[in-house]
């Protein structure tokens, strides 16, 4: 893994505007940045990222199977009690998942470490699947990249394939997101084009325009019944909104399915560590409350695992709320001193998870985080974001990558 300076494609900003990639610059800073790119070997991609991510997703499914039948874990994960049955049924009925993105810390050697799983509402899909692909094809055609290069990016094709697997031909899918957020909308649109390519009908409705019919079904902004809803909106909020009580009776099919509420929750990190202790791709993680109890000398279920992890946690750990988006509420502590804190604390009133710190590599003053895309059950591509700080947030830069060697 190296960061290589490459020539930008002349006029790529015009090209971005032409294809509708309107947020290539955000807040006066570049978001899409192709002044350099990350280079991986095929072995690094396949052995260190692709296969471990597919395995991690399988482990996450095992964790869901455990959590949905455990009152203790449903409570810990802050899933509201009235919706336990809704979440559990969706798992028991085998409702299929569509996509997710693991955030991994990796520096080119050693096992990649799971930072968190964006299993419910991952964004940056368009940049990863499409614009990054275009960069690769055009840079290779221009000779900027050598002839024996490739990119780990079957995201679009895997998405089409997955849609065809999980929906019937001609099925109408509604796509809901915040219309005013171009980043979110781009993700939904990339999703919708893939669904259409898979032979499905795609219809957009703004999330806030969804209505409830007299029959208790959800309807779109034009009063049409919603049969299947792809919602780029987190389950933890769905389950607390005014329409929450109508979710299960509506008989709507939701994508992601309700059981993703278990995975899109930082509380999954302590559960994974409990079920798969010392797995090479996991970092020790605990609920802050359990950690405090163990440090007071209480003999809880986690006391032994905490004692084992203490030296590592003391060296450095990250505290994050169970619900959080774009790095909000994240605090880094090293050797007893707080060394970094995300400015946004809008999620900090939720229970906290403490995870051992995986040092992010430093490339020219930037810290990359790898986004490993899961489509269905397997890893199908990679997107890299980097930031000057060690807490990746929504103004981090997206960097293209390629495979050589």
């Amino acid at each position: 893994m190296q960061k290589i300076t490459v020539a930008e494609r002349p006029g790529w900003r015009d090209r971005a505007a032409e294809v509708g990639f309107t947020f290539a610059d955000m807040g006066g800073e570049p978001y899409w940045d192709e002044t350099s790119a990350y280079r991986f070997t095929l072995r690094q991609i396949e052995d260190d990222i692709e296969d471990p991510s597919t395995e991690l997703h399988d482990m996450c499914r095992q964790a869901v199977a455990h959590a949905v039948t455990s009152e203790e874990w449903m409570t810990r994960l802050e899933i509201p009690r009235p919706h336990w049955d809704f979440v559990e049924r969706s798992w028991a009925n085998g409702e299929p998942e569509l996509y997710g993105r693991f955030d991994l810390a990796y520096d080119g050697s050693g096992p990649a470490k799971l930072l968190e799983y964006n299993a419910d509402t991952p964004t940056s899909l368009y940049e990863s699947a499409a614009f990054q692909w275009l960069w690769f094809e055009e840079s290779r055609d221009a000779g900027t990249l050598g002839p024996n290069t490739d990119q780990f990016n079957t995201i679009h094709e895997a998405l089409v394939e997955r849609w065809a697997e999980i929906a019937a031909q001609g099925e109408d899918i509604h796509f809901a997101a915040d219309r005013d957020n171009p980043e979110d909308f781009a993700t939904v649109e990339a999703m919708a084009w893939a669904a259409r390519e898979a032979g499905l009908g795609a219809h957009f409705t703004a999330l806030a325009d969804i209505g409830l019919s007299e029959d208790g079904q959800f309807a779109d902004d034009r009063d049409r019944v919603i049969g299947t809803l792809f919602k780029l909106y987190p389950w933890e909020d769905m389950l607390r909104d005014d329409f929450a009580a109508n979710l299960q009776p509506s008989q709507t099919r939701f994508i992601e399915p309700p059981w993703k509420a278990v995975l899109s929750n930082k509380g999954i990190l302590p559960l994974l560590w409990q079920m798969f202790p010392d797995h090479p791709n996991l970092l020790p993680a605990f609920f802050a409350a359990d950690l405090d109890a163990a440090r007071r000398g209480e003999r809880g279920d986690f006391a032994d695992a905490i004692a084992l992890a203490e030296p590592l946690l003391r060296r450095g750990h990250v505290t994050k709320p169970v619900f959080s988006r774009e790095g909000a509420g994240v605090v880094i502590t090293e050797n007893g001193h707080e060394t970094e804190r995300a400015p946004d604390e809008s999620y900090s009133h939720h229970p906290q998870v403490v995870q051992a710190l995986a040092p992010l590599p430093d490339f020219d003053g930037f810290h990359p985080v790898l986004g490993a895309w899961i489509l269905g059950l397997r890893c199908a591509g990679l997107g890299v974001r980097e930031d000057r700080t060690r807490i990746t947030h929504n103004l981090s830069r997206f960097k293209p990558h390629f495979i050589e060697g």
Partner: protein
Amino acid sequence: MTIQTPTPRISAPAARPARKRSRHVALLLAGATMLTLAACEDDKVDAQAFPDLDSCLAAAKEGGLFFTEDDCRTQFAAAEKEHLETAPRYASKELCEQEHGAGACGGDPAAQQNQGGGFSFMPLLVGYMMGSMLSRGGGIFSQPMIRTPNGYSTPNGNQSFASNRGSARVPGNTFTRAPSTIGKAPMTSTQVSQRGGFGRSATSRGVSGTGGGAARSVGG
């Protein structure tokens, strides 16, 4: 030239594709309005309607169409079954005829068997429509046809047609199965009683932006 390849071992992992990237992608972002429009316009499939099995068989014999005589038989049987499962039910013949026209209704064979009473009248099967999803990687689909006051439709009511014979390009959702249980079929019109119950972003405090649509991304 012959290339020697080693005999694969049984325990060898499944071969990976040599290429790690897509052959094509969807590159264009068009915005919310375009997505809605494109979905409406481009969603058409080839379809052919017949009033009965014999007229389908006769057309298939002439050839050059997307279906065979076997398809006629299979799809007619499927349409008959689907008609029983998904056709709307009414409490009286009069109510049924108001919706479907005079002489278009009959008793519900399923209700007669069950002594169910209640909603035991339904529109008669007056033909079936077959659609080719071959261009989209699918097979041949069919839907039963029933009368409407001014023409014909499939039970899900997505589209109405002037005739129960002939060929056309029709929207793909014509072939969406109507639900056999409760509520209304996806994409049918309904009476909305409340709106705005999603989007409060309840887990986040002090988010900028107003009302339903939060300005921040939900992404991670």
